[in-house]
């Protein structure tokens, strides 16, 4: 008799379900791609498609970290406000002649500091993350409003433009490369490391995870730091791309990030989800907004499609399951 291999994760039902979710999403993405190619003659153009990636790269960077946070049963609604604050900090530094590398450090530092602030409130003081981050969302953006009011920062150094406007090779933008690298890093972190396993464990049963020797508070602390850091990176890209900072920068982006994560198959209740799913969801949202944009559909109508997609993609499998019973 050979030794039986004891699986360290649920093989069949969970994985099959996840697989079918991602397949469904991929099918949606392909369908949108084909539809767009027929609907507009400008769609299948390498430069246009490259432009389309800017619709989602910044949001997706945050969505990777947010996915881990939501899988662990927490949420961070302050990410867009962190972008506003980090962008304001960078803008203030640019006014006194900071170099691009210093600006990047300031952006990352502000993101980390905001993440740490959320982390302390949630993990050390034990407050519910949804309320805390609604509060810090107003607080962080509020500081930007105090600093800037109705004015704007501009005048970023020339070298700073590369992060949001530079191309690495042909039509491949720096942002897209960063997006791809971060996708791989987060995919490995969540799916191939013990840290990733603890994230799932915490999301499925925090008490059980605690009794299994997982330092729940510390893992959550790290996840909030990561989300803050990713918001800082997104702030660098967005500020560099726009070339200016207003306190209303990235307004409402937190909801688009959460939509992307949920569309990617991450359970809002925690405990399940995958990075490949979030990556596909990013492409779906990017393709939808870009394709509709080519057809001169206004942005607000696109949001109907995104909203309907969010509810429909979750509701349809449930309605289907109810029919079969």
């Amino acid at each position: 008799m050979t030794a039986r291999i004891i699986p360290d994760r649920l093989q069949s039902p969970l994985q099959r379900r996840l697989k079918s979710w991602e397949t469904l999403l991929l099918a949606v993405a392909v369908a949108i791609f084909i539809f767009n190619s027929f609907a507009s003659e400008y769609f299948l153009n390498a430069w246009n498609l490259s432009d389309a990636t800017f619709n989602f790269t910044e949001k997706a960077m945050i969505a990777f970290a947010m996915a881990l946070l939501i899988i662990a049963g927490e949420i961070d609604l302050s990410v867009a406000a962190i972008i506003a604050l980090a962008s304001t900090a960078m803008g203030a530094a640019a006014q006194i002649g900071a170099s691009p590398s210093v600006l990047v450090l300031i952006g990352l530092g502000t993101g980390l500091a905001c993440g740490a602030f959320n982390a302390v409130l949630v993990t050390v003081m034990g407050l519910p993350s949804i309320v805390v981050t609604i509060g810090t969302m107003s607080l962080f953006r509020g500081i930007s409003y105090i600093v800037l009011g109705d004015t704007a920062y501009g005048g970023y150094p020339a070298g700073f433009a590369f992060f949001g406007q530079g191309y690495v090779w042909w039509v491949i933008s720096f942002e897209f490369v960063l997006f791809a690298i971060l996708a791989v890093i987060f995919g490995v972190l969540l799916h191939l490391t013990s840290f990733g396993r603890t994230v799932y464990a915490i999301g499925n049963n925090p008490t059980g995870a605690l009794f299994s020797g997982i330092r729940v508070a510390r893992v959550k602390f790290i996840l909030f730091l990561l989300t803050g850091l990713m918001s800082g990176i997104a702030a660098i890209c967005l500020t560099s791309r726009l070339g200016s900072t207003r306190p209303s920068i990235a307004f409402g982006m937190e909801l688009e990030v959460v939509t992307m994560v949920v569309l990617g198959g991450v359970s809002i209740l925690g405990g399940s989800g995958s990075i490949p799913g979030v990556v596909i969801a990013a492409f779906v949202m990017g393709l939808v907004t870009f394709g509709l944009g080519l057809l001169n559909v206004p942005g607000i109508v696109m949001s109907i499609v995104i909203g309907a997609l969010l509810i429909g993609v979750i509701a349809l499998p449930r309605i289907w399951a109810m029919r079969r019973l």
Partner: protein
Amino acid sequence: MIKTFLRAREAILAGAILLLLALIAIRFAGFIAPANLANVFNDTAPLIILAIGQMIVILTRCIDLSVAANLALTGMVVAMMNVAAPGLPLIFTITVAIGLGTTLGMFNGLMVWKLGIPPIVVTLGTMTIFRGTIFLLSDGKWVNSHEMSAAFKAFPRAMILGLPVLSWIAIATILLFTLILSRTTLGRAFFAVGGNPHAAVYAGINVGRTQFWAFTISGALAGLTGYLWVARYAVAYVDIALGFELDVVAACVIGGIAIAGGVGSVGGAVLGALFLGIIKNALPVVNISPFWQLSISGAAIIIAVALNARAARTKGRIILKRAEHPA
């Protein structure tokens, strides 16, 4: 015992509001004149009405992020209806507003009840759908003051016993839901479902249906506020009350409504709304830039939730806590 606890929490908030008023009065005594306080109350009335609806939803462990979009959509529909047929009686307009709001709320409720989709996902989706629908209906155009009929605009501002109708509607809402929450089976069910859903099931309460009614009430109040808002400001466009849902949630949190469900009171929600309303109205008066408002309400939310958590943490499972923070 819980009751005394709650009462104490509201007393703290009421004390904070009085302190705030005192501080403002030092800088500008005219602010606490009765006429001005009545103005502040009237200005805060929409927030009060929505906060009561949101409170009921939060009591049942849900959240409704679509209230502001519901308000804007209903407001646009009644405004366009008024432009198309200025002669329609006011009671019809109000019925349509409440009816449409209720329908939109019921849609949220059905998604949560029948399909078991998490409330935050449902209302995030319907929020964007409702907003987009306004654009589709209005084609991005504004309905301006001169297009609305005089009766349509006059109703919320009509004075009865020295207070505008808008204020009276807020007062009526406060009284009505204080009664419903304390004196009806459904009202008690909201608390039961949020406090302990499993026990609620054993007590014969249908959790999903109770949540459905919570969303329906929230939708109805949002619809009513939609008409009042559009009539009072005499303008309707796609972005009215944009982001207002967060103010509404903030008012609830400051008012001591536990986001985990089961704990809260109408009085708390009203005080939370008044707290935000006073800050908003006082900042220009005491010469602080209105740009401070956002961060002040953010700080207020964080302080309120920290205080509430501290108050709730007295009882509990000591074994778990030791394990969590080893000495």
